[in-house]
């Protein structure tokens, strides 16, 4: 009887793992198979032409990178601030719990609500129009919980002895933050940021009303009325509206580029994390 339960349970876990891998492999195979013919030097370096049926996605790629970098620049300082508040400055347990709860709630806000909020506040009320900065800000807010929680966990795992030794030397709180806490928790910031950005790279909802247009934008030179092109929005529009076979092929090509970009961000996490971990022990 016990044996049967064991076998059943093992089979179930194997089945779950297979389903997880299977879905991933299926998605990737389809995108790779259909997207690869679209990839060419021209596709990667030319701008969009004939409503996506011809030309390439260079400005979509650049636009997505601009959004990601601004999301990073928005979320990193805020995450550091919140994490330090949570771990160093707040002594009140109830307040700490509330702050953490708030982060989890923020993490659960549907991305379309970020888009609508951005549209009402930035595009309309502040009159910015569509702007890369709004998109970057909204994506930054979206990934803020991921980055912050990764950082908090890393700070909490700093051995107490380091804090005690630094305190024993007479260092002020701010000096301990800069000499012990931040250097030893940077890996949390990098890991959290890369994981968050990998997710943000593919988001369409927060940027479709606030930051991107389908065609006609290059590299933004200002803030007001300065939209960018972006890969996920490009895919979204083509998937909805394209009929020309060439445009549909380019849609798969853009999807392949996007998924590779996200892979790169995710794959960076592991070695970077290991490297920083190692440095903390040997440097």
């Amino acid at each position, binding site marked *: 009887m016990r044996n049967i339960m064991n076998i059943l349970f093992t089979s179930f876990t194997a089945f779950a793992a297979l389903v997880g891998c299977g879905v991933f492999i299926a998605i990737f195979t389809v995108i790779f198979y259909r997207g690869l013919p679209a990839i060419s030097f021209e596709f990667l370096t030319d701008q969009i032409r004939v409503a996506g049926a011809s030309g390439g996605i260079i400005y979509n790629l650049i636009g997505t990178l601009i959004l990601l970098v601004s999301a990073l620049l928005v979320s990193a300082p805020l995450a550091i601030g919140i994490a330090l508040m949570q771990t160093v400055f707040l002594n009140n347990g109830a307040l700490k719990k509330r702050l953490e709860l708030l982060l989890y709630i923020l993490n659960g806000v549907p991305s379309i609500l970020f888009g609508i909020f951005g549209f009402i506040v930035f595009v309309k009320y502040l009159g910015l129009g569509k702007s890369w900065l709004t998109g970057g800000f909204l994506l930054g807010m979206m990934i803020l919980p991921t980055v912050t929680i990764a950082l908090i966990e890393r700070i909490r795992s700093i051995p107490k*002895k380091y804090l*005690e*030794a630094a305190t*024993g*030397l*007479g*260092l002020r709180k701010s000096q301990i933050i800069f000499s*012990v806490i931040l250097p*030893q928790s940077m890996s949390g910031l990098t890991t959290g940021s890369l994981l968050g950005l990998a997710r943000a790279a593919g988001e369409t909802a927060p940027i479709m009303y606030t930051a991107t247009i389908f065609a006609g934008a290059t590299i933004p030179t200002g803030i007001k009325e300065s939209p960018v092109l972006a890969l996920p929005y490009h895919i979204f529009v083509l998937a909805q509206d394209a009929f020309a076979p060439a445009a549909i092929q380019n849609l798969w090509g853009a999807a392949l580029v996007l998924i590779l970009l996200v892979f790169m961000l995710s794959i960076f996490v592991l070695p970077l994390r290991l490297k920083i971990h190692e440095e903390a022990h*040997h440097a």
Partner: protein
Amino acid sequence: MPDLNTCMTPILQTHQLSVAAGERQILRDINLCIPTKQLTAIIGPSGAGKSTLIKCFNRLVEYVPSIRVNGDVLFHGQSIYKPSVNADQLREKIGIIFQQPVVFPKSILQNVIFGVSRLGHIPKKQWHEVAEQALTDAALWTEVKDRLHEPALCLSVGQQQRLCIARTLAQCPEVILLDEPTSALDPKSTEAIEHAIENLKGRKTIILITHNLGQARRLADWVACISTRHGVGELVECDLCEALLTKPKSAEVIEFIKSRRREEQISPMMAS
């Protein structure tokens, strides 16, 4: 007979010092004087609150959760628990070295000037000089002078502990608290640390917690014994080193010395 409590120039003095963590009383009514530029050893059984006591001297005890300190500690005759006292500045003057060496994941040199370089009392030009002096005083200079930029974690545990002593010395503290600095070390490293401590005798006020009576005898001017009475740590006796170790008066000290002698006789046999 000289008595530690009537010594002429105490640099540190506790007055009815009691410490409790939550419901549990750790120390009760400690009245102890620490004479200036002398070495006071604190002995006593494990768990009697010796570490807690010395952490009261630089207010590091406040970082223990739910701790309450009653009574007072006077440093140069002034209470250190007054709200007006800046605890960080106090800790610059009263350095502490822990049982296990705590070395930051940085180079040897960066570790020595870890506090100095950030506190900003000493100009950058002199950091190297300060580091050399501190490492010399900690009896480590000759071993590391050619590899100051190597990671400090490559040093042996004994060297790391001397590096910690150097790091504290670099800040020119008036008092150095040593919390069983050799308990994690082998005999050779212990000897090196004792050598370093001997170097400092007469120049700094040193408070040394030790389990090793031989170490107390070799190094200390004064000895204070903290022991538990009804589960709470109390100061049971303090006197000149020789007097306390040869003619102890209280039952606790006699018992403690007996038990340590037994262990110190057994341990070499077990080691061989």
